[in-house]
């Protein structure tokens, strides 16, 4: 009897808990599912549709867009799209590498400062990235325009013809990418440095003596989780970057993001654009997998959030 009463209570409690759960996480989750997950699924399905008049997608389902993406058009095969894809990869790769090289000393330097100054220093690094991407890129256009000190210096060394600016070029795109994503690497690396056991580094300093070996054996293993997280946070959005190559790069520095955007604007081929976007979505999911794995590792396998 009392067991049944207790069960009745527990059912009522379960019910109250379920409504509370839905009341708290419900709106946010439904919002994201409705306005982000569903649109993404729709976009994926567009990639498998036929290109209709005005670029709008139509039935029947086909793999035509993927063939086009691989370069098979009406005029036979052309490598343009594959070049764009490859260029996206290598520009991302170089930019990520440079970001790592710059972020390591910065993150380490901040972590060695007195604790009351660190928060401010981090803020100083991060704030520029909070201003609008277009404005930041516009700033670089100003800096690298013809007749500016930077361009003149480059011309003196014969790197560019005089009277020309440093942009549009792949160099400018990479500078823009490095500038844009530097904070995304500094923050996780700083977090790793903050947790680092400095005794190990000191011991390694005694034992290995050369800085390279100290870094490889003592610093790198301890900051690896931060490095991994930073790499994911930098490389995935860099791979899909649109604004920077559009403004700082010419046709020869185009990246996948520009290819996608072009299909929805001038070229008007939604299925082709969606197919290119699908490649980015796959890269995103891959990145999420890595991020989640790192999160598990850091959180001892139980925490839900990184």
């Amino acid at each position, binding site marked *: 009897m009392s067991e049944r009463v207790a069960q009745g209570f527990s059912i009522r409690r379960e019910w109250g808990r379920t409504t509370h759960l839905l009341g708290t996480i419900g709106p946010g989750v439904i919002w994201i599912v409705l306005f982000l997950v569903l649109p993404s699924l729709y976009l994926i399905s567009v990639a498998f549709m036929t290109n209709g008049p005005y670029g709008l997608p139509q039935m029947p389902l086909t793999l035509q867009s993927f063939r086009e993406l691989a370069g098979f058009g009406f005029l036979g095969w052309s490598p343009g799209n594959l070049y764009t894809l490859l260029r996206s990869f290598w520009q991302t790769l170089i930019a990520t590498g440079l970001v790592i090289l710059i972020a390591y000393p910065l993150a380490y330097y901040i972590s060695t400062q007195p604790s009351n100054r660190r928060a401010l220093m981090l803020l100083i690094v991060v704030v520029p990235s909070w201003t609008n991407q277009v*404005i930041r890129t516009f700033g670089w256009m100003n800096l690298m325009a013809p007749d500016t000190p930077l361009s003149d210096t480059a011309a003196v060394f014969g790197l560019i013809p005089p009277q020309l600016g440093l942009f549009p070029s792949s160099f400018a795109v990479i500078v823009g990418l490095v500038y844009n994503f530097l904070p995304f690497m500094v923050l996780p690396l700083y977090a790793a440095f903050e947790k680092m056991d400095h005794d190990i580094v000191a011991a390694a300093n005694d034992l290995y003596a050369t800085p390279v070996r100290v870094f490889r054996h003592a610093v790198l293993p301890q900051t690896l989780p931060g490095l991994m997280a930073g790499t994911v946070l930098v490389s995935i959005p860099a791979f899909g970057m649109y604004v920077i190559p559009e403004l700082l790069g010419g046709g020869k520095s185009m990246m996948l993001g520009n290819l996608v955007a072009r299909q929805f604007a001038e070229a008007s081929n939604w299925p082709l654009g969606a197919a290119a976007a699908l490649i980015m979505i796959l890269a995103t999911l891959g990145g999420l997998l890595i991020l989640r794995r790192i999160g598990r590792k850091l959180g001892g396998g139980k925490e839900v959030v990184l």
Partner: protein
Amino acid sequence: MKRSRLNRSLQVFWYLALLFLYAPLAIVVTFSFNSTNTYAKFSGFSLRWYEKLLENEIILNAFYNSAVLAITSSALATVFGTALGYGIYRYRHLQLGWLIWIIYLPIVMPDIVYGISQMTFFVGVHQLTGFLQPDLGTMIIAHISFQVPFVALLIYSRLVQMDPLLFEATQDLYARPWQRAWYFVLPTLRAALISAFFLSFTLSIDDFVISFFTAGPESTTLPIFIWSAIKKGITPEINAISTLLIVTVFTAAAISFAIQRARPAQSRSSQ
């Protein structure tokens, strides 16, 4: 000896990095006060570009749109995101691992994919039902979706720092669920809520790509205006608008930093 040399070179590197980080912004701000229409040379201080802004109705309208977009989306995202972060915290012992995919999706997804997926979806829904015509409303919807995860993570991280017994203490002291939310959870999260709002606000002001693809013809925001001005051929007013946006973001950053600083400082001084 060796240490201090390393430290000195790190310090030099730090200042070089600051130069790198702030040069593009500094040049925009500087040339917004330039008296002539050139960005290669500074030829004298003037406020003429700011005066021109005030006369330009398109720019004023874009400014209005940006403000409405940022404030509305941030307010709604703070509400949804706080509830979400709180829910994840309260039910963290349940199997909610799948939620993390949904939360990280907007954070990691490239802007361009995000923007076009919203655009194709809104256009599709509009064709079918007549709802969701691209304008300020669709922009607000799109912004909320990427702000909510950031708010949720921020609130969650604040909650996990708290003594979980405090929740139980409220129950033990006769607080009904709504009283617990009103008298305990909200006051405790006050600083985090303000930070969350400012974070959402800066995210919204910072965004261009998503706005660009979800905007309608009547809902040009400042970044979209700047973009098309750059594309059409640079006009000097861009420097002035950009400067205003930069100042806005820096002010928001300073406020949220001051709020976070204020709490420990207050307790130190009163002891």
